[in-house]
């Protein structure tokens, strides 16, 4: 990690458990601004749990407990005085399965800003978000049609647009392509390259090729433990940990 890279999100000795069972154990990890950080690892290793803790989405899960400190620009995300709603305004999330609202394409993208009292030009905001998500050309003539009429890949790009409309600082992505076909996956990966100019992205993926193609930093988690974290190229071509090597060469997982 070069010294020009600035830490935007710092995870310090985080332990997250569900009903007593530890899913994330003593993970310490720094996310760098305007970079794509990938979190890889076998199923059930705690990557999604860790990701969800970054925008307080674990708050909705009963019996989920957390220790350690997660800070966003040096502000503790879990401090008593921190407003989780405000956290999510600044740290957005795209989910594994596309989950557009059963509303029009326009309303989907405009929903977030209008809830938040946005008083500028909504049309402009919607168009900007859809362009950034590489969806504008496909839907510009049918903005008021139902979002559910779009294909899977288009719906996921709509969900990305919806998140972008909020102009967050960080975008968390939880295996965003796992429910999509290869063509849609490739389109979204191209999208990520463009997005990283303006946004910090943390992407959880079980697809190692995707992680190596797209990210600058990669973290490898196994059984809730952070096994290795470093520059993507180094993690994939010359990993320092034997387990990492076994995983990335496909010997397990």
């Amino acid at each position: 990690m070069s010294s020009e890279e600035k830490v935007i999100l710092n995870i310090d000795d985080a332990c997250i458990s569900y009903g007593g069972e530890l899913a994330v154990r003593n993970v310490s990890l720094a996310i760098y601004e305007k970079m794509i950080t990938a979190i890889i690892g076998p199923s059930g290793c705690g990557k999604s749990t860790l990701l969800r803790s970054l925008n307080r989405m674990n708050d909705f899960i009963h019996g989920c407990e957390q220790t350690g400190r997660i800070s966003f620009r040096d502000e503790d995300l879990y401090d008593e005085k921190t407003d989780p709603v405000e956290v999510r305004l600044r740290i957005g999330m795209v989910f594994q399965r596309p989950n557009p609202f059963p509303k029009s394409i326009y309303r989907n993208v405009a929903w977030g800003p209008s809830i938040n009292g946005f008083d500028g030009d909504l049309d402009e905001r919607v168009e900007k978000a859809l362009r950034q998500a590489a969806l504008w050309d496909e839907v510009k003539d049918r903005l008021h049609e139902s979002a559910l009429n779009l294909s899977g890949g288009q719906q996921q790009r709509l969900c990305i647009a919806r998140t972008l409309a909020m102009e967050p600082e960080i975008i968390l992505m939880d295996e965003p392509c796992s429910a999509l076909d290869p063509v849609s996956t490739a389109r979204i990966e191209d999208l990520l390259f463009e997005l990283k100019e303006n946004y910090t992205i943390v992407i959880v993926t079980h697809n190692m090729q995707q992680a190596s193609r797209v990210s600058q930093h990669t973290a490898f988690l196994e059984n809730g433990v952070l096994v290795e974290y470093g520059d993507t190229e180094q993690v994939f071509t010359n990993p320092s940990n034997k387990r990492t090597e076994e995983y990335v060469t496909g010997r397990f997982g």
Partner: protein
Amino acid sequence: MLSMKARAPRYLENSLQGVFFLCAAISTITTVAVIVILAVETWGFLQHVSVVEFLFGTRWSPLLVPKSYGLLPLLAGTTLIVIGASLVALPVGLACAIFLSEYASERARNILKPVLEVLAGIPTVVYGFFALTFVTPILRTVLPETDVFNAASAAIVVGIMVLPMVASLCDDAFRAVPDSLREGAYSLGATSFEVTTRVVVPAGLSGVFAAFVLAISRAIGETMAVTLAAGATPNLTMNPLESIQTMTAYIVQVSLGDTPAGTLTYQTLFAVAAVLFLVTLCLNIAANMIMKRYQEVYE
């Protein structure tokens, strides 16, 4: 080698199936019977009273001279009850459903759902009693111009009666909305109020409509509470504090007396019941169609 012959003769199996089919057919026969009987007697009624006079007449007096057969007062009475009951049941039922599906803990649900079931299981005659002996006196203290028998008491009580059904159906509708939708909304920085009112309820809206339509249908068909508390005076009014008579209460009134078959008065029973049946049938069919539509969306 085991014999391949059937252990029971074929005809036993077939006759059993025939018996079962007859059981199922009884329901069809019931519907046919209802339709035929109502149609025949109403037809007889309409030989003496024109359709126009029946449906648009403003005076209902089949028992007292001068006789008059205009249904509007009874329709007005029923409508008054329906409006009043809806004003109680729909908002309260909706709020209960929102609480049950969005805010209540597992423990709260386990207490509340049975409570609502109990409310739903209380016989209507008990609600009628409650209206007459509890609600009416309170109403008369607050608004002294209220009649002893009035539409408002009955309407309030019918609303309470229908409320559990509205709550339960709306709750089902909201629980059918997938959590992924809620997560998506929360992740955009929304509060629980916004997620509930601007994502969950709109997503479950057709279920809510179906619940409302069914509630109205139940209120229209309600008999004992209105008979006991709303009165027996056909009255074309929209003032809930007055005494009125609903279609159902009229039917009860005639039955309590001795009405010889074949008379015009006897036939009014069927004519009014026919209107009742048609209206509730249409509403129920509409509700079912609405419910089918929302089930498709999440399949």
